[in-house]
Structures are given as C-alpha cells and as structure tokens.
C-alpha cells in the first residue's frame, strides 16, 4: 500500500521531531505542516517512523 494522504491533527507541540526524521515531507512553521506535491511513496518508511515517533501522536496518513 502506498501512502496517498497525510495530515496533522490538532495538538502539535512543534517539537520538530517529524521534520528531523523526514524533512522531505514535514516542515515546522507555527506547528508541523505537510509539504504538498511530494511523492509520499518515496518516503514511506520515514513518514511512518515520524508518525510513530510523534510524542503527541497527531500525524495521520491513509494508505
């Protein structure tokens, strides 16, 4: 299964861990944001690692 959609739910603390793990997909502004236009399939492992590492578990994705 390929990741087709990623989003950030409310509650991000802007800790920067997702950007540190996968800067190709996540960017910290006031809170974490998902960079659009990226082929998420190329970064699946890193996206999943960012989601499981998120201390407040707000990273969601659909495969």
């Amino acid at each position, binding site marked *: 299964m390929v990741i087709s959609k990623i989003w950030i739910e409310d509650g991000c603390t802007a800790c*920067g861990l997702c950007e540190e793990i996968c800067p190709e997909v996540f960017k910290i502004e006031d809170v974490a944001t998902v960079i659009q236009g990226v082929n998420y399939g190329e970064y699946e492992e890193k996206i999943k690692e960012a989601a499981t*590492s998120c201390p*407040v578990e707000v990273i969601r994705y659909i495969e």
Partner: protein
Amino acid sequence: MNKLKTTYMGIEMNNPIIIGASNLVTNTDTLKKAEESGAGAIVYKSLFEEQIQLESFQLDEKMTEFNDLYAEMVQIHPNIEHAGPDEHLLNIRKAKESLTIPLIASLNAVNDDTWLKYARLIGQTGVDGIELNFYQIPLDFDKSAKEIEDRQINILKEIRQNISIPVSVKLSPDYSNILNFIKKLDEAGANAFVLFNSFFQPDIDIISEKHIRTSHFSNIGDYKKSLRHAGLLFENIKADICSSLGIFSGEDVVKLILSGASCVQVVSTIYKNGLSQIYNIKKELEEWMDNKNYKSIDEFRGKLSRNRLSGDPFVYKRAQYVDLLLNSDEIFKVEGTSRISSPED
C-alpha cells in the same frame, strides 16, 4: 525577590528548570522561545564524536567515489576535508551570544584524547558549563566494571585539570555500585551529577522480522530512580545533583528538590506539551512553596534526603518490598478473600 532562584555548579539560575540536551532547542529562534518560556538554563544538544566520524567517512566516500572512472583521472573533486566539530562549536557560540540565561554544552566523545580535545574546544565557546555523557553499553564480555570506571574517572580528571568552566557528569544508573563510582568522580572534581541518562533500546517488528526505531520518551512516574539517588547522595558528596528522567510536572520537581536535587532537566514533557510547560511547572512549584510558606528553594532542598530523615530509616532501602511481601494477604485482600493463591489451589 525571586524565590525560585538556585545555584547549580556555581552557576546562578532564575529557577531550577533546565531544558536537557535534545534537538528541541538548536536554532536561535527556538532558543529564544525557550528563554522566553522561562527556562532556568539550557543544555545545548550534544556534540557526538561518533556522528562526526560517520559524517567524515561519508564525505570521504563521496569525494573519491568517481576517482577510478577513467585511468587518467587522479581525482574528480578538489581536496575538501570535513569540518569536524567546527560547525557545532560555531552553533554553540552563536547560541550563547543569543541568550541571557546560562547555556551548558554537552559532550559525547569516544576516544580518550578526543574527550579532552573537544572539551577544550567547547570551553573556548563561552558556555557556562559542560556536561560529559559517560555511559558504557555492555558489549564486551572481557572488560571489567573497574576498567570502565577507572577510564571514565581518568577522562574526568584530565578534563578537570585542563578547562576552567564547571563540569557535570551525566550517568546511566547501570553501574555495579553507582554510589561508590559517584564518590570517586566527586573526588576527581566533578561539579555536578545529572541523574540519569535515557537510552534508545532496540525493539523488533515481528511482521517484518526487523529491528525498528522506537520512541524513547520517558513516561510520567519515571523519576523515582532519580529521586532515590538524589536522596542517597545529598550531603554525602560535594557536587550538586541535577535530577533528570521522567520529570513532567511541578509536583515532580518539588519531590526531587525535597530529595536533594538543586535543579532538574526536562525533555520529554516539552516534546509532549510544548515549551509552555516550563511556565506550568514553575507555577505549580511556586504555588506549592507559597502554600508551605517556603521563601527559597534552599529551605526545603534535601529535607527528605536519607541524612535528614527522622522518620522511617528504611525508606531508601528495600524495606517497602519486604513490607509488601509480609503483608501481601492484607494488601491483596478483596472483600474478605485473598487474591493470592496457595500452591494447592
């Protein structure tokens, strides 16, 4: 008057809440935000010798990967060397210049000579102190505990003799007799002990049958080992105690100071709750002090350490566990029946 004021290895701080070494506060913006949120001090993320070695190796590989493409070609890239720790040192210097609160550098080296070399370089950046991360993941069946401890004591002595800023030692609890080891490090000149480190532990995905990286945040309540050791060490060593690991709230901070800590380091609670948690922790601490009518941290620091205990003398021993066993029938009794099964059941 600021009642939260404290002193940590000779460094004056507005309050006892230090943001521990992590990637949370690395750039100038987040450092400023951390200062504005009321942190007493910040430990800048660690300088890892292993990371520098790896980056240097990767750069060498990149620089030479096409050198054998043509027989006539000597090298395709100009001679460029990895900057080593220079970038990190520059960032520490910039961080120090941008802050008014104390900044402590953190060092994880590998080789005996680089411990001293990097510590000296860090000492020249203007930071207020340096934190040495001593640990040994047991992988060698032939190395004794004494060898490991003697080596780390010698590294500390060398650094202490060669740099003038205060030096703290951050330890894991995994030493045979950590009190004896801390006593020796104390005699070797450590200004403070940070108790304790937390490490990544391996885990396995049973579907893919591969090792996976897991979150290594501490959890609420994980501070208890730090609390025990603060209580055992207070007034038995010259160095200050900074408690670390699983400290989430103002209530946790109160407990650790009562045990003997001069200050605490927080990381996981900031990851989970954001920088505003510093404000919440300070508020809870201040409210508790007001309720108890304490005017300063020193008034209650170490009040419940082993040396000052007037009540239960066994609280820092295993007596609680013995008590649990002796009274297990009572403890696990539910509506007149015991939940402990006898072997005949």
